């Protein structure tokens, strides 16, 4: 049995929010219980609208922040049990991250060579010429030329900068790369290049990707599994094929129907969600999706649903469990 590289169990992250002078601070539940396994060479895409906790999940996985509760283990080591100094340095090297904004993620005062060598300076005992050699190798791997070594970030386009960011993330030979919307700041034509580069690198180095995105057409291209989140909670988790061909959760269905498509053969019914996402400080009782769900009934208002398997998908939904929508879908 192959061990998963990343194993997350009921991850939670709460932020205290001051509500006013002399009032008790409230809890913002940015992440309210996420579980998944991720294997080497696989891509888990995390999708959802803004504010659903995608980026918080990314920051937890990248060890920038610590979970409030829950267990997270990387490569068989439980992070919650590791004492901070000794092991975490080795663990840190196993997870690296590529950020959304390639204009903010590279230090404007450092040359590309210095940016790429920084992880090596901190973590390895290599000498200057060995470091330079490694940085140049990494640059050619992501399609940058040797003369870029001495240039500053502002002299590059967005796509090139994202390549630099990817090279920096890979230079310590990590096992997991967290990609926090790595292409959403790029032109569509460049997006494809970067995505294809990521796929090539994944095959070459057997990396595990956690791909955070709100763009379902990009997810369709790169993901193996998809985790749909809503208000800090997972609502549906399934393989890419199942999710795109047969979405189960009403929220996933709405999300998919909102993806723009060229020349649809048949008229699709667009599901329009009403209202806004509720505040994570004061979430609705029961299923958090109930204020916007057309299938909501009394159970949805009182008891939160749990993830269960329906039609090859793990879904948290009362309407499915009570066969209020599943059958209708099968009948079609």
């Amino acid at each position, binding site marked *: 049995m192959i061990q998963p590289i990343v194993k997350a169990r009921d991850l939670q992250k709460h932020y205290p929010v001051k509500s006013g002078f002399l009032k008790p601070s409230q809890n913002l539940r940015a992440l309210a219980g996420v579980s998944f396994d991720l294997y080497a060479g696989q891509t888990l895409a995390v999708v959802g609208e803004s504010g659903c906790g995608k980026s918080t999940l990314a920051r937890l996985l990248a060890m920038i922040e610590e979970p409030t509760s829950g267990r997270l283990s990387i490569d068989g080591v439980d992070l919650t049990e590791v004492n901070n100094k000794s092991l975490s340095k080795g663990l840190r090297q196993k997870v690296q991250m590529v950020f959304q904004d390639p204009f903010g993620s590279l*230090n404007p005062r450092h*040359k590309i060579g210095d940016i790429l060598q920084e992880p090596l300076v*901190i*973590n390895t005992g290599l000498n200057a010429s060995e470091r330079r050699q490694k940085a140049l190798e990494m640059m050619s791997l992501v399609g940058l030329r040797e003369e870029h070594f001495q240039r500053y970030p502002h002299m590059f386009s967005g796509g090139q900068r994202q390549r630099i960011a990817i090279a920096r993330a890979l230079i310590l030979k990590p096992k997991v790369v967290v990609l926090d919307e790595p292409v959403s700041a790029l032109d569509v034509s460049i997006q494809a290049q970067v995505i294809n580069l990521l796929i090539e690198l994944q095959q070459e180095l057997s990396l595990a990707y956690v791909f955070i995105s709100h763009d379902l057409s990009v997810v369709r291209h790169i993901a193996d599994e998809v985790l749909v989140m809503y208000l800090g909670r997972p609502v549906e988790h399934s393989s890419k094929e199942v999710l795109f061909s047969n979405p189960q959760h009403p929220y996933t269905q709405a999300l998919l129907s909102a993806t723009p498509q060229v020349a649809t053969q048949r008229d699709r019914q667009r599901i329009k969600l009403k209202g806004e996402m509720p505040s994570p400080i004061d979430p609705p009782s029961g299923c958090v999706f109930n204020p916007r769900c057309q299938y909501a009934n009394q159970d949805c208002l009182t008891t939160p649903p749990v993830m269960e398997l329906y039609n090859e998908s793990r879904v948290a939904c009362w309407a499915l469990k009570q066969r209020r929508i599943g059958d209708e879908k099968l009948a079609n």
Partner: protein
Amino acid sequence: MKNPTVVSKSLRVQQWREFWFYFSASKTAVAGLIFLIGVVLMALFADVISPHEPAEQYRQFAKVPPAWKDGGQIQFLLGTDYAGRDMWSRIIHGSRLSLLAGCVVVVLSLSIGVLLGLVAGYRGGWLDSLIMRVMDTIMAVPGLLMALVFVAILGPGLLNAMVAIAITYTPSFVRLTRASTLTELNRDYVTASKMAGARPMRLMFISILPNCMAPLIVQGTLSFSTAILDTAALGFLGMGAQAPMPEWGTLIAENRDLMLSAPWTVTFPGIAILLAVLAINLVGDGLRDALDPKLKRS
């Protein structure tokens, strides 16, 4: 393929060109820079330029007016003071002390201010509050008064005056550095360095500090001129450079009694202070225009 070092050299040249393009757009800044270079050269070659020793007393030539006035002598271009010392030579040598005061004050307050500001912004919490409240306290007292208090404690003298003035200037540097540190701290490139395992020292000085430099350079230049001004003021009050030293403020102070009978003895040191401060301020304004990306025209 081009040699990378050649590329980087031409890059630096290109950056300097760009900087000069924006700086030279302001004619006054260039004029200020030229005058400032003149003052620096004057200070460097004071021994060569000055016609007399600054402390040499020509007793028979006391209170000689400037050369172009009646009774003036060509060997004493700007006249002499009560003891027969050549004003022109004393002003030339005084430029050394003024520039020294400016440099020492800026270096001291800048380095202390940057250090405290970085720590306050990076660490946050109680340490931040402590540092910032101390700085607020220093700022609450008028600068010159504060400097006077410190000199009263340390004792009069040029060095003590410089230290005292440096202390009063530190808060502005702390605030500037802290503010830029706070904005830079949340940038992704800092997070990326953290993820690579960078320690606080590396984050503060290698990742963050270079990105906070532009406002600090401008503030440093402007502080340079006020430092000269404040050193002169302390000298005038008898708390800075002491009597035989040809410091500009001290020159005015020691000839204060002659203000009506021999006005040139106070006028020319005053003009020297005025021009030096004006020139540095003009350069500072030009620097701000050139370094502030928000003011750049594309």
